[in-house]
């Protein structure tokens, strides 16, 4: 399913995935930036026009699921759907890797369990923020206690997802090849073999394919495998 890129490279994210990612990222940035004056009103209230900020926040919030839904459902979404399945369903080894905080052996898939969890958490948070945000905007059917609850849940999940995004950006900056792959779409075969060996096997560019039986380097990440061409 994943297509070969240029010589020595494989496609990690196709165009649909990259567009969806950056559209989603842009919306999140706009939402966080507009949330600040809405939340910390006394700091920003004198400078910014609250109503305008509020409308931008509302419309960006309503638009938030659009890149994901459109990219998943359209005829262009094969890779999105495949990666969604990949992110959603984990092997026992991946679960163990996560619960032991990376201290267990794992031949990493296209995404490591941390990346998978990040994706799931962001996805679930989008749904929660959208639902509670809608309750705050169209509050009249709900009892006042629920509106208060929705305000708190919205704030709390927004804080949490902001921290998650900060961590995500920090890790991306710490791993430039991964970051570049979200821009250009491709990674080197060597990178795939080193960082995502199970995925490299799937693509037929791995080392573990066949008789050599290199099924289990001690960790997926810091594996000093020699980059021998197949």
């Amino acid at each position, binding site marked *: 399913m994943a297509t070969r890129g240029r010589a020595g490279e494989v496609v990690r994210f196709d165009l649909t995935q990259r567009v969806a990612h950056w559209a989603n990222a842009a919306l999140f940035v706009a939402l966080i930036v507009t949330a600040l004056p809405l939340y910390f009103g006394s700091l920003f209230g*004198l400078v910014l026009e609250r109503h305008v900020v509020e409308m931008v926040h509302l419309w960006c919030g309503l638009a938030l699921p659009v890149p994901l839904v459109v990219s998943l459902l359209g005829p262009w979404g094969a890779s999105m759907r495949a990666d969604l*399945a990949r992110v*959603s369903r984990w*092997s026992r080894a991946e679960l163990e890797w996560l619960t032991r905080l990376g201290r267990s052996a794992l031949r990493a*898939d*296209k995404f490591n369990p941390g990346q998978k969890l990040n994706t799931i958490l962001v996805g679930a*948070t989008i749904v929660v923020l959208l639902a509670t945000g809608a309750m705050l905007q169209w509050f009249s059917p709900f009892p*006042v206690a629920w509106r208060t609850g929705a305000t*708190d849940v919205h704030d709390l999940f927004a804080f949490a997802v902001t921290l998650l995004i900060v961590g995500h950006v920090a890790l991306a900056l710490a791993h430039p090849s991964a970051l570049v792959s979200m821009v250009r779409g491709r990674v080197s075969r060597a990178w795939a073999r080193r960082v995502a060996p199970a995925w490299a096997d799937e693509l037929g560019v791995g080392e573990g394919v066949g008789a050599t039986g290199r099924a289990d380097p001690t960790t997926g990440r810091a594996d000093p495998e020699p980059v021998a061409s197949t």
Partner: protein
Amino acid sequence: MAGEGDGGVGREARVPVGRRVFLSLGALATLGVVFGSRLQSAARGALGTGLGGLLPFGDRFRLYSITGSYPAIPPEAYRLEVSGLVERPVTLTLADLEAMPATRLVRTFQCVTGWSVPDVEWEGVALSAILERAGVRPGAVAVSFDSYDRADTESLTLDQARLPDVIVAYRMLGAPVTREHGGPVRLYVAPMFGYKSLKWLSAIRVVDRVEPGFWERNGYPVNGWVDGSIGPRAPAEG
């Protein structure tokens, strides 16, 4: 959420982590919406208002302005015009208001959209005292309020306006009402949602019918009782 496709190696049993996390967070959020306000008051009770105020959510004013800016009114230039169906139309200065008997209230400020701030201190003049000073004429039914922002308006029935916890406030949170909170003088209608407490109060007009205010024309109930009852009610204690 979890797809059918075999995204990975496929020779091991797969765990639907995506679906589980998704449903757990969804359930947690739902519980938070339904019970969050109770949890918040419990936490506030346990921590006291000092520490409770440090909770990362709740307990903070979210400031609204329908014109996009806050009117700047020097306290000495402040004037409150009382007119309409009254015997003696008057224009009151801040000093006039401060010279009248003061009413002090400590109440939870409750916004119709859900957020609230507990134990807010207010000080001002009972609206009923101002109405009495101007003398309400027969045929008067309601009171309309105008704001220095030239956009917001509010209204109360005469009965509502005469409740003892409806005040024209010049102090809030232990200090003169700040500009962003509607200073130097604003309305504070304690038994109703926050939108009834018009900011930057400029005029009180006694009229012969209820004129729905800005927020009511935008869908909020005219009678914004926090406890949900419709008619005038007995003022609550404390």
